[in-house]
Structure formats: structure tokens, C-alpha cells
């Protein structure tokens, strides 16, 4: 099963340039036309499931607006947090 991830896009930094949308290998990102940032941009968001947490959106983001998380698999969790 593919890894499951999710992203948080900062309203402070996102300028809606769409570079992450064209770079996303899963094609799960789009501009959120129902939301405006304080600067007046439509920020990027994920509109459906399928994010793997690969962080390619964060690699191309010119404004470092994206924080990427990935769900820890049981094997990784066991090594990362010793009892």
C-alpha cells in the first residue's frame, strides 16, 4: 500500500502560483477557489485523497509555504520510538 501523507499550506506565504499543482505526481492538488488568503490569493490545497507525502510540492514551492507530513508505518514507528 502506498504511503499516506498530507500537507498544510500556509495562508501567509502561498501566492497561488500553481507550480505545486503541475508538479504533483498524484495530481491531487488544485487552487481552492472557495477561499482567499489575506493577500487576496486563492491558495493551493489537496482536493482528494491520494497524497503520498513525497514532498515534491514543497521542493518546487518558491515561498516555502507547504509543510509535508507522512503517516508513520508500523515498522518505522517501532524503530523511531524505542519502548
Amino acid at each position: 500500500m502506498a504511503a499516506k501523507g498530507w500537507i498544510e499550506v500556509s495562508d501567509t506565504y502561498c501566492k497561488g502560483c500553481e507550480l505545486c499543482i503541475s508538479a504533483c505526481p498524484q495530481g491531487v492538488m488544485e487552487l481552492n477557489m472557495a477561499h482567499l488568503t489575506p493577500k487576496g490569493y486563492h491558495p493551493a490545497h489537496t482536493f482528494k485523497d491520494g497524497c503520498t507525502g513525497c514532498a515534491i510540492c514543497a521542493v518546487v514551492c518558491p515561498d516555502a509555504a507547504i509543510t509535508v507530513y507522512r503517516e508513520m508505518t508500523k515498522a518505522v514507528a517501532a524503530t523511531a520510538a524505542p519502548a
Partner: protein
Amino acid sequence: MTTENLVYERPEAFTEMPTHYCPGCTHGVAHRLVAEVLDEMGIVDKTIGVAPVGCAVFAYNYFDTDFVEAPHGRAPAMATGVKRVLPDRVVFTYQGDGDLASIGMGEIVHAAARGENITVIFINNANYGMTGGQMAPTTLPGMKTSSSQSGRDVETQGYPIKVSEMLSTLEGVGYCARRSLHDPKNIRLAKKAIRTAFETQVRGLGFSMVELLSTCPTNWGMTPVNALKFVEERMIPAYPLGDYKISDAIKQIKV
């Protein structure tokens, strides 16, 4: 036990200030790569940046390091002074093509010829971005800008200057490379080159420069996504990517 695992977050070497760059401008990517490298090397506290005149004139607002602002084109001269007075600090300049390749050509060539132990991040976006997209020394032949409205005519305006190739002929240069910021793979390669350039300086192996092919969506009159395609299809053939000079000592560095 937490089930979430942080994969990527904003570099700590950045301040909280949002950048003033146009949406989709790869200046932001270049800033982010420098910040990530400073974080990874743990040298944020002893780094001094030198900001240019151009779009990156406010770079001192975005990096959580010490910064000085140089007159137009004079960043390598100022960095020379800073580095000679404070040799234990890491000194880098961040310059565009109007700044470095035009008015500052004398400063960069002589700083490189002297082998000053500084790092230069050179952003090549083929025009003067801040002042409204005028023709720069790096503008491609035939490319339309606000001051070459029928396209750059090489008979009267000459050919673009290839800065990396030119500086790589100088003895004082330790590391000189050209990278592009148009896709994730090349962004990662660019980060590696910036890391190598800073490692060169930390080890005292001479002048280091990374030229980054960048976009200017506003002045090129394109969407950010189309501007990346322009870099891939038009700029890379004119400015081939690669390592132009890498001294033997630097080849040993593993990053």
C-alpha cells in the same frame, strides 16, 4: 506514540517574513535552497550575506543571518572586505544578472581572479527583473524585452555573456557550476551544488559560484508554469548545465 512524521517544513534559516517576489518566481526557490543548506551545515549563526540591487534587494529581510546591502554590482567587493576582516565567518553574495553580469562585471571577475574565499549565488533570468524587464547581458538572441522590442539583435547588441564559462578559466576559482530551477530533479541538483559551494568556502578552497537559471514570469509575460517550460526549452540550450570548474580538492568533498 505519534503516528505523524514530518517530511518537510519551512527552513529555520528563514525569518517569518513573506517574500515580495511575484507568484511563481524561482528567486524564492533559490532562497529556500540557500536556507536549507545553511540549516544542514549548521552555519546560520556565523553566516554573513551580501544583498545586491535588483529583485533580491530585500534578501536581508528573509534570511535569519547577518546581512549587508551592497551598492549595485559591488557585492563581491563588499564580501571581499567582510571575509578578510572576519575570516572565520561564511560570506555569500546573492546577485542577479543585471547586477553581476552588467554593472558588477568588473567586481565579480576580479574577486574570482583573486580567489577570494567567498560564495556567489548568481541568478540568471535573462532580464532586469526589478526595473521592468529590460535587456540584460544574459538576454537570449531574439528574445523580446521592454528595451529590445523586436528581439535582441546580435549585430548591434552582441551575444549573451556566459558567466560560468568565463569565470571557470580563472585560476582563483575553486568551484563553478550552472544549474537550473525548472523541475524537482534540477532543484535537488541545484541544492547539491549550493552545498558544495559552501563546503568549498568552509574548507578555504577558493572562490565558489553557482549560476542558477531562473524564471521571470511577470516580465516574460508568461504564467509561472509556462515560464518553467521556457527555461527548459530555450534557456538550457543556450546556457548548458554542468560543472564548469571543480578543483581536485573539491572533488573529494562528499555532500
